[in-house]
């Protein structure tokens, strides 16, 4: 729920509208969903990819292939973080060679996740091309990566957080912008601060 420290920037309706618009954009550019595959990046890219596949099927009568990508093995910060992230499976049930792939993720921030995803996909084969859809583009890129389809452009400051919640993973559809936590008013309950 939105509080004083958070604002709802997308609700269920605006998420549906954004996905529907993107489905149309994809069809406009490619005329058909044939030979097209949607690959969702774990975790929230996966339900988004399935939804877009469903919308494309409704519009066009053909459901594109979908796949799941776990990018953790390709992260560039593995030697910097204490706990190696929990690995989940990558499941790409179609032939990546000569495929046309739209990568799907929830939030585009530094672009490093997408860099890792591109490397991961290329290890599985040689697609004809790869495009990128994100539900929210919040800026602050650290590598030269740009999305092809965007649900919502959301200017943010670096310290803010964008939280995407989806029916399939979180029980409801919304996008929240969380402001930086305010200074502690009295004594912190988390223990002494450094």
């Amino acid at each position, binding site marked *: 729920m939105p509080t004083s420290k958070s604002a709802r920037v997308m609700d269920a309706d605006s998420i549906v509208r954004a996905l529907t618009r993107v489905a149309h954009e994809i069809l406009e550019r490619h005329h058909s969903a044939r030979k097209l595959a949607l690959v969702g990046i774990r975790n929230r890219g996966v339900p988004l990819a399935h939804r877009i596949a469903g919308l494309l099927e409704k519009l066009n009568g053909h459901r594109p292939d979908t796949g799941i990508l776990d990018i953790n093995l390709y992260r560039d910060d*593995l030697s910097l*973080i204490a706990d190696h992230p*929990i690995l989940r499976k990558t499941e790409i049930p179609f032939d990546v060679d000569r495929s046309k792939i739209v990568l799907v993720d929830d939030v585009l921030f530094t672009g490093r996740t997408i860099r890792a995803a591109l490397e991961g996909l290329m290890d599985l084969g040689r697609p004809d091309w790869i495009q990128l859809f994100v539900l929210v583009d919040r800026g602050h890129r650290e590598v030269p990566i740009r999305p092809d389809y965007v649900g919502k452009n959301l200017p943010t400051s670096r310290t803010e957080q964008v939280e995407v919640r989806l029916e399939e993973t979180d029980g409801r559809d919304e996008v929240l912008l969380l402001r930086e936590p305010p200074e502690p008013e009295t004594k912190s309950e988390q223990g002494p601060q450094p």
Partner: protein
Amino acid sequence: MRLRTRHLLGIASLEADEIQLILDTAESFAEVGTREIKKVPTLRGKTVVNFFVEPSTRTRSSFEIAEKRLSADALNFSAESSSFVKGETLLDTARTLEAMVPDFIVIRHSEAGAPHFLARHSGCSIVNAGDGAHEHPTQALLDAFTIRRRKPLKGLRAAIIGDILHSRVARSNVLLLSKMGADVIVCGPPTLLPVGVEKLGCSVTHRIEEALEGADVVMALRLQLERMSRGFLPSLREYAKLYGLNRERLRRAAPEPIVMHPGPMNRGVEITGDVADGEHSVILEQVTNGVAVRMAVLYLLAGELEGEAAS
């Protein structure tokens, strides 16, 4: 969730949730093994020393493939080529290896406790690849991974048959399977069953028929003749007759039993050829899964090591 240790010294020091984490992580690496390009950049720039003081082909190759598939640099240091034969102590060899600043040392040694000794005197992560008759944790993990893909570990009945006395595989497997809620029974001639083995959490029998009754998993162990200095057995033929796993005996097991062997096999001694090659055998699957499990272990320990270094 993370491993609470930076070394993998044995199953004894792992909790059930850590075992679960390693097995779950191995599923991801098993998928990498099915790709055309079976390599990920995850441990780029890390160095692993495979320090094998006891001869080993399959375990060392398995670790080496795992390291290469993770893009780590692997260096093999084996007994024949090492200064061990020239009289250097384990500590001095360890210091020499340490001076090359590896991130991991994978050690196989004929003395129980050698990996633990190394862990106390070295700054890098130690992985036990078998120490004497003590433990062989990655073998037990890959066995559990292989079993789990067919039957859930909890409530499973597993029979481990053969030379329990000299077997680190048996010890690690008993510990692991009982921690994961399986019932384990070990079976062998009295001379090859260590005193007090039931304290590990298994039941014991001298009769193979009793061990096999209703078993979901049947694990045959190799007779480690090279470790038998005195008369443990009247003859190999008698052993095969009383304790060899054959088709006839396997009928007592549960439907669709899983037949395992850590290798190398003595065909016709602890297991007959038709059972080893039969439809229930997962012996080659164990080898394939070994690579995925070892990749998972290295991946999880690498994260831990960096965490300690950063704090």
